[in-house]
């Protein structure tokens, strides 16, 4: 029934989304609206902290309009660089994406071949399984001190943390995908005397590709979650550092803006991986 509704009124769902947004924004606006209060304060204190804050009429918590204005400001000039602690949001996001990509691609380079080996050989699977089971549930941030101590460079340590957190879903999904390739397809390759290498690339890889892509999609999501926390710890650059820096500046508006941008970039990364997954999927 809901299906037919979606077909006859395709605008209904977007309209509802818009309505929810409006309700949420209005509630936010009402909750943060400056109060009309006539509290008499010391004028010197008022001059020090700003009039509105001194009277308690304006809270540090911004309204939607403030955040919107700030967001627009960042969008207009995303790449300015005015020193260590004042870089454009675009630059910070760029740093974060670069770190995520470096760690993620390194993880893929290790996880996919290793997952292949684990999936093809029950012996390797049984040998490595205990290590995977122990290493997998470790919070990637727990590696951070160790990484900082051994690698010393904070930027590379962040990349290492991304590497270690995104390797597991890819490894496990690749191994599972490779191990569960239909016996029939492998038998076809065997009866046609297809070489092991060609079987790996022409049969096993395409057969396992959808499962591998699912693992890659989970990994990019986790990597993007972890990069914010990692950059809060290592500092210097990146969107995580930006959020922490703005917390120190007590600029809730900037934090809000950053949160919004983090969500948007995460969504874009996920959508990109979903597109790729659709390219390699097949219908039986």
């Amino acid at each position: 029934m809901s299906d037919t509704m979606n077909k006859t009124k395709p605008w209904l769902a977007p309209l509802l989304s818009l309505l929810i947004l409006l309700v949420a924004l209005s509630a936010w606006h009402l909750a943060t609206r400056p109060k009309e209060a006539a509290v008499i304060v010391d004028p010197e204190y008022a001059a020090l902290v700003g009039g509105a804050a001194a009277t308690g009429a304006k809270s540090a918590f911004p309204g939607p309009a403030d955040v919107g204005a700030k967001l627009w400001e960042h969008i207009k000039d995303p790449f300015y660089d005015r020193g260590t602690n004042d870089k454009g949001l675009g630059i910070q996001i760029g740093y974060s994406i670069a770190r995520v990509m470096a760690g993620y691609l390194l993880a893929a380079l290790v996880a996919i071949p290793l997952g292949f080996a684990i999936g093809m050989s029950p012996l390797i699977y049984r040998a490595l399984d205990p290590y995977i089971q122990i290493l997998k549930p470790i919070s990637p941030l727990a590696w951070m001190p160790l990484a900082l101590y051994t690698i010393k460079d904070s930027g590379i340590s962040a990349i290492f943390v991304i590497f270690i957190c995104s390797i597991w879903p890819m490894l496990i999904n690749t191994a599972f995908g490779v191990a569960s390739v239909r016996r029939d397809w492998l038998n076809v390759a065997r009866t046609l005397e297809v070489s092991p290498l060609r079987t790996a690339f022409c049969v096993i890889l395409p057969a396992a590709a959808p499962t591998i892509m699912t693992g890659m999609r989970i990994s990019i999501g986790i990597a993007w979650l972890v990069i914010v926390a990692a950059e809060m710890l290592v500092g210097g650059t990146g969107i995580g550092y930006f959020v922490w820096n703005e917390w120190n500046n007590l600029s809730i508006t900037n934090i809000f803006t950053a949160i919004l941008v983090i969500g948007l970039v995460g969504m874009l990364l996920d959508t990109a991986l979903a597109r790729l997954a659709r390219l390699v999927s097949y219908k039986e």
Partner: protein
Amino acid sequence: MSFLKVESLARRYDKAGPAVFENVDFGIARGEFVCIIGHSGCGKTTILNVLAGLDEASGGHVFMDGREVRGPSLDRGVVFQSHALMPWMTTLANVEFGVRSRWPEWSRAQVGAHSTKYLEMVGLGKALHKKPSELSGGMKQRVGIARAFAIEPKMLLLDEPFGALDALTRGTIQDELLSIVQATHQTVFMITHDVDEAILLADKILLMSNGPQARIAEIVEVTMPRDRTRSSIHHDPQYYRIRNHLVDFLVSRSNDYAGLPASEPLVVRPGLEEDAPIESHPPGAPVVRLVS
């Protein structure tokens, strides 16, 4: 001398227990079409997989063309029960996959042309660029047949290829297979559950007794002329004699053989018998002659 020779093949899952099948001996001459019939669990598919080189027997040997079968080979094309097409490849790519492996020195155009020829032979000239998911069950099985024929193997192994198809589609593909086999004189070994299919296609039908310790109990020679067609075959008086013989075997005799000690399979030609009652041929009693 037989082109394919199977000698005292046996399969047991544990060393102490009884064999699934044992003392399986038979031969297939070049150009011969042999069907094997038996109840589920008697090991037909295992025998076929051993012939294909995909499985190993616990005992016995298989020779093809004077050489022992060890592992799969392009000399033996296999059509799988579940068609086993790669769903991410088009129809043409599925056939080309095997052709490229058979003749690695061929150019892309040669591989394409050769594969197209075989797909056209099974009536799929218009579905070259479709994915298996866009094809009906019958069309998928045709692709499987084209893939096996396209590598021009010395022998074809068919594992109940039409089992999952409806009766109408099955009939059409049987006709196609019959005409291709008659044209190419392909040597074929095929598993089937369909008595009519076996009579239509086979020169020789191997009947397996029930397991455990299943074996080939009788070899039925289909004595009707080779130019059979599905529309006329049931007018031949031999047809019902053979059919009754096979059905009687499946209904009762396959079980009677189970307790008897292993012996050479009976070679029978029920088509040439003057409607003698089947009951007069209890298992063990020679009907025409023992295999020599």
